[in-house]
């Protein structure tokens, strides 16, 4: 990740329409990477109980984990919750569309891991 890419990630995460809280979410989950201190909470409203109506995330930590949460929630809109939870790692990375080095995989995957535990 070079400075230009980082600038873009940072601006993206700062302007994400998905950052913040939902009023009366139907489901929420939180998780963290204790090894690096990234923390994430995801809240969603559901349509017909099975698909994502709207989502928001609260975040503390690195830019990569914030951006991944934002991209995931953008992708999840209108899609079936279980379908997202079953995303294969390869497909998830394709959806993210940003280069992730092997050392940063846990940062990138935090959003998916948290999404998988939505109740």
């Amino acid at each position: 990740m070079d400075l230009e890419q980082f600038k873009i990630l940072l601006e993206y995460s700062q302007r994400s329409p998905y950052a913040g809280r939902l009023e009366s979410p139907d489901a929420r989950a939180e998780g963290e990477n204790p090894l690096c201190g990234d923390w994430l909470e995801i809240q969603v409203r559901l349509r017909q109980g099975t698909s994502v109506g709207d989502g928001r995330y609260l975040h503390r930590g690195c830019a990569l984990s914030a951006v991944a949460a934002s991209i995931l929630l953008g992708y999840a809109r209108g899609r079936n919750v279980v379908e997202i939870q079953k995303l294969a790692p390869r497909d998830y990375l394709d959806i993210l569309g940003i280069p992730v080095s092997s050392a940063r995989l846990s940062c990138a995957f935090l959003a998916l891991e948290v999404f998988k535990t939505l109740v």
Partner: protein
Amino acid sequence: MPKTLPENIKEDFPALFTRGENFTYLDSAATTQKPQSVIEAVADHYRRGTANVQRGIYRLAAEATRAFEEVRARIARFIGAASAHEIVFTRNATESINLVAQAWGRTHLQRGDEVLLTVMEHHANIVPWQLVARERGATLRFVGLTPDGQLDARDLERAVNARTKLAAFAHVSNVLGTVSDARLLTSFFHERGIPVLIDGAQAVPHLGVSVAEIGCDTYVFSGHKMFGPTGVGILYAKREFLEKLPPFLGGGEMIRQVEFQSSSYREPPWRFEAGTPPIEAVIGLGAAVTYLERLGMDRVREHDVALLGQALAALRTIPGVQIYGPGDPRERAGVIAFTLQGVHPHDIASLLDEENICIRAGHHCAMPLHARLGVAATARLSFQVYNTSADIERIADALRRIAGVTQKSS
């Protein structure tokens, strides 16, 4: 002897020239790059023939054993130990601490006893004690720090009590860089009849250490953090301390006689060296000690202090930087941990990696310390003899540009 390290000392380290011109390695606290003499010592050992030590009758085996034991003696001299028999080879400092925690802990800790540690300990000097304390019904207590990252003397007085059976502390913190007064602390504990274990993993590579002067019962360090290979660590312990300990690991080499149901054990240090030791790693460590002796630990220390001073000054000019640990470079050794507002340490490390600069980010195996500091993670620079002023200018410049990104977009 001249006061400074040789100007071209970096050339002793081949790895620093194989990864591009601007390769800047600032993570020696994690592991050190190796000088040519260490590489040669290990390769030479293989080329000339290796043999298992302390077993064979043939000449090659006798030579291997002699070379191996000669390193034991050299290490004893290097740290001022009274005898080579007070040097135990382990796998690393972590294993050395586990050895004491298990062998001493199981036979000396009773229910209600306490082990005294500090909040700045590395996990290696916390978890082994947790394991044995749980087994024995003992508890752990932690001495707190001053805002400057030193051990809080008042907290120490409060924490030590009649139930304290052992104290363990880091000579140099791997996060804050704090150099503790090992001798003063050891006498404080000895006055109260409390034996002492000192984690010297970050101290031995940067300071001249004399266990005779310090007076500690035990002292541990790792080969790979002082230009030696991975796979070898040291436990120094006074003869009287070692003699009271039962074996830690069982197997070949540490026995005198083995029958089906029971065995008798050798005297220390061999009692604590089960199985084939890391022979070539020990040989390599011997060469590393020779390398440090030739440089002179005084000069190594002066170089470290100079780099720390320059780095601290540079970091302080970058907006949004917070530095953890002592402000005075003479009160630290080897490392500087810091945070940068608006940029997570992992992002800092990734960005620096893009410029071929290696630093560490995270909790540095000191989660309790980070919890106490109120941060999830920090970035850490660490220095060794192959680092230069130019390295510090390079990283300061990079950090300034990174800080600039968050300033503009906020």
